[in-house]
């Protein structure tokens, strides 16, 4: 494939621009652009207030880093990136960044902003040595739909193209509880330019899946059904790549389960059935009723961490003998929560496409820079060549176009999007073949697929947009054959 070369070519053009811009007004911007190409993919976690963004972030990092609370809590856009040492940098709206002491608790819940009001802080950057952050930088955002207009506005600035210096994120994980018109508006605003947010780089998450259907035992199955329905809804398809259910509390607790918590759960599981059921009926009963051996304070801490559904599930798992120790329970909780699926999706879909997405971000940024300060003809020509030669970008655009108008390719049975690499970049995945398929098989399939789209492209009755789309698919097949 040519993905790496696209990024390499982009890097080269940006490098040339940087050399040219030396000493001019735009030098810092081009330098930032150049630096960004080599940074990991930036994934923003966005959504309405209280959708569980920080909880999900903690689950993804595997550490209780971001502050979480029952009330509205995240007020500052916070970046979490891999770094050599623990460090917190705070960027005020004006003035130089300030380094803050890292809280001893290890959680930003207790961070001291050193006299800065949250309103005047543009963002906070947390360096945290973590394997999980190597692949992508995560950005936690305040919720939209907040009572506090200013807080909501801040996320929008970061995530929508109106923001200064373009969008900060390459891809977005969008959390919703139920699809709300606010969500659609937001996603539309984010997605509504040539570039930044497109369905290809937005994953929808049906968050707080454990609270669906009043947390009855089948809550997660219901949540999966709802997520599937959303993913198939044309209004949502236009905005998100797909929708997956995630129970944030289960995920973050699963990632950081303590032995002490496990032993409390074991003691709860050992209670007589009637007492246990009475206890697990409501949270009020759970934290106040008499229960042999488990003190109320421990129960309160547990239900805060895990939620009532989480406690019920954990107790059930222990009773069924499926969680013989804390780590086994943690694995079960993580699997139940759906975070494993999300993580896989981020690594297979986003990370695999990271280079293309980053190249695209850089190309767009460069283009908008050129509007203000036209480049010399030579650089302009090389830039145009770069854009014209980037079939990867064309593919992305076609995926978006197909999402926008499913009738674009009348003969399509869903394989076109797969062929364009929507579900993975590997030729076998693109052609819908087994991972074990041999080279001959790959070649044969590619040839037949090529012939198929060739026919579509040359169909005299096809409209121009259809023919164009089919030609793009033909070229994709050709790329696999050379």
């Amino acid at each position, binding site marked *: 494939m040519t993905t790496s070369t696209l990024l390499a070519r982009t890097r080269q053009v940006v490098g040339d621009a940087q050399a040219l811009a030396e000493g001019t007004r735009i030098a810092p911007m081009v330098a930032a652009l150049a630096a960004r190409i080599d940074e990991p993919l930036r994934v923003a976690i966005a959504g*309405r*207030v*209280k959708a569980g963004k920080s909880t999900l972030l903690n689950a993804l990092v595997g550490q209780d880093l971001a502050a979480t609370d*029952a*009330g*509205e809590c995240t007020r500052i856009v916070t970046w979490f990136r891999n770094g050599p040492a623990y460090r917190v940098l705070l960027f005020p709206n004006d003035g130089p960044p300030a380094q803050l002491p890292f809280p001893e608790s290890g959680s930003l819940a207790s961070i001291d902003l050193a006299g800065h009001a949250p309103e005047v802080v543009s963002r906070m950057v947390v360096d945290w040595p973590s394997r999980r952050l190597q692949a992508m930088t995560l950005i936690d955002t305040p919720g*939209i*739909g*907040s*009572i506090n*207009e200013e807080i*909501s506005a801040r996320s*929008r600035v970061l995530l929508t193209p*109106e923001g200064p210096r373009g969008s900060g994120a390459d891809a977005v994980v969008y959390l919703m*509880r*139920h*699809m*709300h*018109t*606010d969500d*659609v*508006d937001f996603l*539309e*605003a984010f997605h*509504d*330019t*040539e570039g930044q947010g497109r369905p290809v780089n937005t994953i929808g998450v049906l968050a*707080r899946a454990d*609270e*669906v*259907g*009043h*947390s*009855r035992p089948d*809550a997660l199955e*219901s*949540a999966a*059904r*709802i997520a599937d*329905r959303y993913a198939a*809804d044309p*209004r*949502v398809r236009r905005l998100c790549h797909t929708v997956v259910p995630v129970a944030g509390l289960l995920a973050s607790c699963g990632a950081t389960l303590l032995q002490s918590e496990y032993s409390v759960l074991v003691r709860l599981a050992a209670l007589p059935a009637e007492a246990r059921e009475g206890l697990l*009926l*409501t*949270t*009020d009963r*759970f*934290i106040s009723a008499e229960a042999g051996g488990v003190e109320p304070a421990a129960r*309160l801490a547990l*239900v*805060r961490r895990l*939620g*009532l*559904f989480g406690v019920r599930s954990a107790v059930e798992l222990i009773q069924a003998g499926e969680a013989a120790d804390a780590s086994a329970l943690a694995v079960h909780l993580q699997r139940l929560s759906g975070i494993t699926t999300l993580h896989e999706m981020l690594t297979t879909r986003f990370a695999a496409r990271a280079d293309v997405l980053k190249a695209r971000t850089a190309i767009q940024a460069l283009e908008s820079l050129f509007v203000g300060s036209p480049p010399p003809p030579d650089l302009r020509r090389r830039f145009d060549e770069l854009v014209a030669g980037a079939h990867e970008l064309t593919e992305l655009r076609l995926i978006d176009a197909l999402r926008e*108008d499913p*009738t674009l390719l009348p003969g399509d049975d869903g394989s076109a999007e797969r062929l364009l690499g929507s579900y993975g970049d590997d030729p076998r995945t693109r052609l819908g073949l087994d991972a074990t398929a041999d080279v001959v098989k790959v070649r044969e399939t590619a040839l037949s697929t090529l012939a198929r789209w060739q026919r579509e492209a040359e169909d005299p009755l096809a409209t121009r947009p259809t023919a164009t789309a089919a030609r793009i698919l033909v070229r994709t097949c050709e790329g696999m054959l050379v």
Partner: protein
Amino acid sequence: MAGQQEGRLAKAASTLDLTIKGATVYQREDLVRRLNAAKDMLGQPSVLVYVVGEFKQGKSSLINALLTAQVCPVDDDIATAVPTVVKYADEPAATATYVTEQETRVEKIPYEAAAGYAAEGDPRGAEARAKGLHAVQIGIQRRLLQDGLVLVDTPGVGGLGSVHTTVTVGALPQAHAVVFCSDASQELTAAEIKFLKTAQELCPTIIFALTKTDLHVEWRRILQLDLAHLARAGVTVEPIALSSELRLQAARRVDQTMNAESGFPALVAKLTEVVADSEQVTLKAVGNHVHSVVDQLEQTVRARQSALVHPERTAQLTRDIADTRERLERLKARSARWQTLLYDGLADVSSDIDHDLRIRARGVLMDAESAIDEGDPAKNFEEFASWLRQRLAGETMENYAELIRATRDVAGRVAEHFELEESAIVVPLRVEAPVAKVDSLELDTGFAVASKKGATAMAGLQKSYGGLMMFTMLTHIALLAIPLPIGLAAAALMGRSGMKDDRKRQLEQRRQKAKLAVRRYVDEFNIHVGKDSRDVIRRIQRELRDGYTERLDELLRSLSEALKEAERAVQSEQTEQQQMERIEADLKSLAMLRGQADELMTQRRVAAA
């Protein structure tokens, strides 16, 4: 409870009957008419309580738990699609109301299937909605509903499907109370607060139900946060924390402690209070009518009595005539003044409201035009059109809230002139914002034809929006509250242009055409809605004038009757003794009626638990 209730209303009815008899004897058909109207009022004691809130906040569950019956659709995923009206019936029964362009039709449906009809995803419901299903009515035998309480489950606002749902919350001003549901999983959002603010202006009692308290350990804190937000927004509510799940469990296990824990007894008490309050208002009005009729009848009797009792009859009569004349003069003078007050007051209102509407329409127009300038009308025009409609419908709603407030004010000021009791104030009955008008207006979309897809979607939109389909007021209010600055929202809806230079000119043309269409549309809007609001004000004026004139005529007639009676007494063939006996008897029964009326007005029902 029911017995007591019936007793009170029956007593009110029998008091009215007696008074009607008395008035008939005195040949005062004008008073009889008024008393009959009051009797009609007793006949329909429905107390409307709307259950509202964003979608998936447990509105339907709340009603089901309250009545411990599966009357409203509850599902993990699908939401309520049409309003469900639940009222008392001796036998379980259900009907569906269909509204099409031609007719309004009510059909019996199986009780067990009723919840399905109201649900979003149910095939039967989808079929029924395709036929124009407007609402589902369910009758169920429950003590709580026996006193006329009617619960209305509404489709939630903010959902993906909600743009097209049909709730008429133009009816909100007629609701006796609103139960607003918000679950304990998170504090109130900006949209919810904005909704509550508007609801408060339209409905006197707002019960704030914090639902799903069984699931969320921090519900007390959430409640605190919510109340703090509401206090800051200046919204007064009656908070009740509820767990529908627990109530249903309690009903299954017949466990009173658990029922108490669910928080529902507080809600039941509150609703009973609302019913009692509204009944109190009705009874007070009945009492007032009886009082005023008794006063007028008594005046006649007394005139006759004084003519008989006092020897200097002639002198007394002359004095009475003089008095009467003086009172007539005074009232005439007053009548001139109140008429001026009414006309001037409403003329002011009319011009204010018209101005307000124009300002609002202009604001919308400006936002729409700047959105068009930033985007390409050929893209996403259907979303943009529906945004425009919603925005205008919302503005209409707010404009009408203003209208209702202002006319009530004028009616109150006129009433002061008559020194009338509060309940005797003539209040305009039904005022509904003409939001449906916004729908029926046509938005020219010729320029969007450029995109094939846009064109077909547009036709579909026209269809689904056309006809008698009513706008969802709740939805609009909430949609307006989308915390994006409205202009930005519109711009976001309008496809951003990514055109090359050579297409710029075409784009510019499309923009011009789109602007023209929007301007025309807003003009139409101004004309139609403006006309409607002027009509409404004129109607109110007529109603107020007729109402007050009737009262005046009654008073005048009473005075002249009194005069006649006195004269008749002097000339009567009957013996003085006979006449006096009859007068005594009449006065006694009038006093008794007055006593009964007093009783009606002061008695308060003991709130049932």
